[in-house]
C-alpha cells in the first residue's frame, strides 16, 4: 500500500505530460545537426545523478504548474516566503566567524559590523563543540583552532562585549552542547538587562544531522533529542523570537551527499522535530513557525536553486497535509545558506572568489533569508580579515549592483528550473518513503543507513574527479605547476594558554557551594525525563559552572555514543 510520501510522489509524476513538438524538433532539427557536425551526445547528470536533457520546453511543466508554483508569500511558497522578497528587505548578511580567544572573536565581529554585516554568526572550536573545557586533556592543541573557545559564561561575556543583543540577531553553530550555550546566551541577556522577549537568534542544535554527517555529539541520540525538546518548549514559552533549532543540510552536503540527499535527509530531520513538538503536547502552530533551516549552496547552479524551491514546497505541503498546520507561518520554510566549503580549492585560491559568487547567487535566486559567503583562503586556514571582507563584499555587490533583487523569483517559470524542482521533490518523497519503511529517521541514523548513502555518493564523486569526468579547474585541469603560498591567519598556542589561565581565574572567583548545588540539582532533574532542563542549566551557567562540568552531568546519566560502523 502506498504511504503518504508515495502518494505525493505519484501526484507530481502524474502531472507531467509529453511535448510532441519537442520530439519532432529532435528528429527534424537536432539529430541531423549533431550528425552533420559530428557531435556525439551522451547523458549528462547533475550531482544527484539525475539525467539532464539538452532542452526543456513547455511540455516539461506540470499540467497544474500555475498552482504548484503559486505566488510569493503564499502557499506553497515555491517563489519565496515573503510577498515582496528582497524588494522589501535584503537577506541578512551573516558571516560565520570565530577563532582563538573570545577577545579575538569580539574584534572580528565588530570589524564585520563596521563593514556592513547585518547579523552575527558564531563558530566554536572543537573542544567547545564536544563539551570539553579548554584545560581538558582532549582539548590539547585544539583550543581556538576551528572557532572560538567557550568554557564558561565569562567567555560569552567577552565575545559579546560592547554588542547590543537587543539590536542584533545571533546565530550559534552549536549542536551537542546547544542547550548549554543557549542558556549562556539567555543568562548573558539577563545580565545585560535585556528581557528574553527582545532577543533574537538561532541555535543550530539539529543533532540528527550530527549523527548523519558532522559527527559532533556527546551522548546517545535520545538524550540530545530530549535536550532539544526542552529548548523547544522553553523558547516557545519564554523567548518568542528565538529559533530553537536550525535544521541543517549544510553538513550533510559537505560530508559528501548529493543535492537531493541533502534535501531529503534534512527535511526528514525537520519532520522528526515537528513530531517531537506535537508529542510534547504543543500545538503545531505554536512552535513550527520558529523552525528554521540551513542549506548548502554548491556549484551546480540550477540544481541548487531547484533544491531551495523544492524544499519550500515540500515543507509547506507536508506541514499542511500531514501535520495539519493552519498558520501559513508554520508552512513557510525559512533558511540560511552557506556557500560550499567543499568546492573551495587549495590550488589557485583566488578562483574560489568566483565559485563563491556563483553559489551565493544561486542562494539569492533560491530565496534565502540569510547568507554566509566563504572566503577564498578557507581551503588553507580560517580566513584573514582581508579575505572575509571580499566575501562580504561579494554579497553586497550581488545585493546592490546586479539588479537580481529587483524582481521576485526571477527564474520562476523557467521550463528547466520548474521541471527540476518537481523532480527533486519526487526524489525527496522517495527517500522519505524509504526512511519510513526503515522505521523512521532515528532508526535510519542508528543503523548507519544515511551515513553509508552519503559515503557512497562522496566516493563516486571522487572517482569521477580522478577519472577527469568531473572537472575542477586548477585541480585536475588547467593546473599550475607552482602554487605560490598565500597569507593565512595563524592561530598560535597563545590562545590556548590564555584561555586556560582565564578559566583558572573564573574558577577562583566563583562560589563553589553554588556551583556544586546547581550541578546536583541539574543531576536530579536529568533523571526525570518529564522535567524541562533549561532552567536548571541556566542556573548552572549563572553560577559559572563550566561547559564541561555541565556536560559531564549528562555524560554520567546518559553515557556516551559510538557511531555505527559503516566501513
Amino acid at each position, binding site marked *: 500500500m502506498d504511504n503518504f510520501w508515495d502518494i505525493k510522489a505519484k501526484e507530481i509524476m502524474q502531472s507531467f505530460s509529453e511535448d510532441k513538438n519537442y520530439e519532432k524538433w529532435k528528429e527534424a532539427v537536432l539529430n541531423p545537426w549533431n550528425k552533420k557536425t559530428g557531435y556525439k551526445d551522451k547523458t549528462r547528470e547533475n550531482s544527484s545523478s539525475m539525467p539532464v536533457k539538452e532542452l526543456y520546453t513547455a511540455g516539461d511543466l506540470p499540467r497544474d504548474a500555475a498552482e504548484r508554483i503559486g505566488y510569493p508569500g503564499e502557499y506553497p511558497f515555491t517563489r519565496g516566503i515573503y510577498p515582496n522578497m528582497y524588494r522589501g528587505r535584503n537577506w541578512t548578511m551573516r558571516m560565520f566567524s570565530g577563532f582563538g580567544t573570545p577577545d579575538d572573536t569580539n574584534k572580528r565581529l565588530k570589524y564585520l559590523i563596521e563593514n556592513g554585516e547585518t547579523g552575527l554568526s558564531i563558530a566554536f572550536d572543537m573542544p567547545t563543540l*564536544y563539551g*570539553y573545557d579548554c584545560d581538558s586533556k582532549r582539548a590539547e592543541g585544539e583550543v581556538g583552532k576551528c572557532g572560538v573557545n567557550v568554557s564558561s559564561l565569562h567567555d560569552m561575556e567577552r565575545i559579546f562585549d560592547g554588542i547590543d543583543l537587543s539590536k542584533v540577531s545571533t546565530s550559534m553553530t552549536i549542536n551537542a552542547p546547544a542547550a548549554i550555550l543557549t542558556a549562556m546566551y539567555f543568562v548573558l541577556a539577563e545580565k545585560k538587562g535585556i528581557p528574553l522577549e527582545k532577543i533574537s537568534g538561532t541555535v543550530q542544535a539539529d543533532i540528527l544531522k*550530527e549523527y548523519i554527517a558532522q559527527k559532533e555529539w556527546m551522548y546517545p541520540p535520545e538524550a540530545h533529542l530530549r535536550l532539544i525538546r526542552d529548548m523547544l518548549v522553553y523558547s516557545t514559552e519564554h523567548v518568542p523570537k528565538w529559533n530553537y533549532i536550525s535544521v541543517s543540510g549544510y553538513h550533510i552536503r559537505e560530508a*559528501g551527499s548529493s543535492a537531493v540527499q541533502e534535501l531529503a535527509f534534512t527535511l526528514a530531520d525537520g519532520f522528526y522535530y515537528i513530531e517531537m513538538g506535537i508529542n510534547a503536547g504543543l500545538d503545531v502552530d505554536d512552535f513550527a513557525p520558529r523552525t528554521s533551516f540551513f542549506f548548502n549552496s554548491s556549484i551546480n547552479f540550477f540544481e541548487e536553486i531547484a533544491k531551495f524551491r523544492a524544499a519550500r514546497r515540500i515543507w509547506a505541503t507536508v506541514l499542511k497535509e500531514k501535520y495539519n498546520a493552519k498558520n501559513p507561518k508554520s508552512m513557510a520554510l525559512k533558511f540560511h545558506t552557506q556557500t560550499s566549503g567543499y568546492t573551495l*580549492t587549495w590550488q589557485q585560491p583566488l578562483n574560489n572568489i568566483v565559485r563563491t559568487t556563483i553559489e551565493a547567487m544561486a542562494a539569492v535566486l533560491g530565496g534565502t533569508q540569510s547568507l554566509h559567503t566563504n572566503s577564498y583562503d578557507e581551503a588553507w586556514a580560517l580566513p584573514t580579515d582581508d579575505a572575509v571582507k571580499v566575501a562580504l563584499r561579494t554579497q553586497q555587490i550581488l545585493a546592490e549592483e546586479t539588479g537580481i533583487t529587483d524582481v521576485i523569483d526571477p527564474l520562476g517559470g523557467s521550463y528547466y528550473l520548474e521541471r527540476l524542482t518537481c523532480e527533486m521533490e519526487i526524489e525527496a518523497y522517495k527517500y522519505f518513503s524509504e526512511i519510513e519503511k526503515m522505521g523512521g529517521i532515528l532508526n535510519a541514523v542508528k543503523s548507519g543507513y544515511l551515513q553509508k548513502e552519503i559515503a557512497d555518493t562522496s566516493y563516486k564523486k571522487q572517482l569521477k574527479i*580522478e577519472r577527469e569526468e568531473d572537472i575542477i579547474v586548477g585541480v585536475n585541469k588547467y593546473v599550475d605547476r607552482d602554487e605560490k603560498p598565500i597569507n593565512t591567519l595563524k592561530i598560535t598556542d597563545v590562545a590556548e594558554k590564555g584561555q586556560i589561565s582565564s578559566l583558572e581565574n573564573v574558577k577562583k572567583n566563583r562560589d563553589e557551594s553554588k556551583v556544586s548545588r546547581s550541578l546536583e540539582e541539574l543531576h536530579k532533574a536529568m533523571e526525570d525525563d518529564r522535567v524541562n532542563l533549561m532552567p536548571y542549566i541556566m542556573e548552572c551557567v549563572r553560577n559559572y559552572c563550566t561547559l564541561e562540568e555541565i556536560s559531564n552531568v549528562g555524560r554520567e546519566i546518559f553515557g556516551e555514543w559510538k557511531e555505527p560502523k559503516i566501513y
Partner: protein
Amino acid sequence: MLGGRYSVSGRSQKYTEAPIKVLLAKPAIDGHDRGIFVLAKAFRDAGMDVIYAGLLPTPEEVVDTAINEDVDVIALSLLNGAHMTAFRNVMEILKKRGVQDIAVVGGGIIPDEDKPALEKMGITGNFGPGTPLNVIIDHIKTRAREIRKMRENEY
C-alpha cells in the same frame, strides 16, 4: 620489543605477498570524516587491508590498534588544525612503545610551514586538499615496501 608480533613461523617470507595493512585514523576530536572514508574505499580498491579507527580515538588508542592489528602503515588525517599536537603525540607514544616498523603518513589541512617539522618527526606525505588518490596510494605502497624490507632484514 615488538611483543612477539612476528613470531608466527614463515610469516616473514610472506611479507611481500600479503596485502598492505593500513590503519586510518583521526587522532583528535575532529568529526570531518568525508576524506577518510574516501581514502578507506580507495585503499581497499587498491588491494589494501584497511582498518578505520572510528571517530574520536585518542593517540594512545590509535597506537594500540596499530600494534594489535599488526599494520604496516598508520595514515593520520586531521582537518581541525590540531595536527602538530596530535600527530606528535602519536609519534611519541610509538617511540615509547619501541615501535619502529610501522610507517606513519599524514594528510589534511596542513600548512606548508608545518611540513618540515612533521617530516622530522618521521611523518611523510602530509598531503593537502586536491591530492590525486593515486599519489597517496603510491606513497603508502612505497612506505609499506620500505617497512617490509626493514622487517625482513631484522628477522
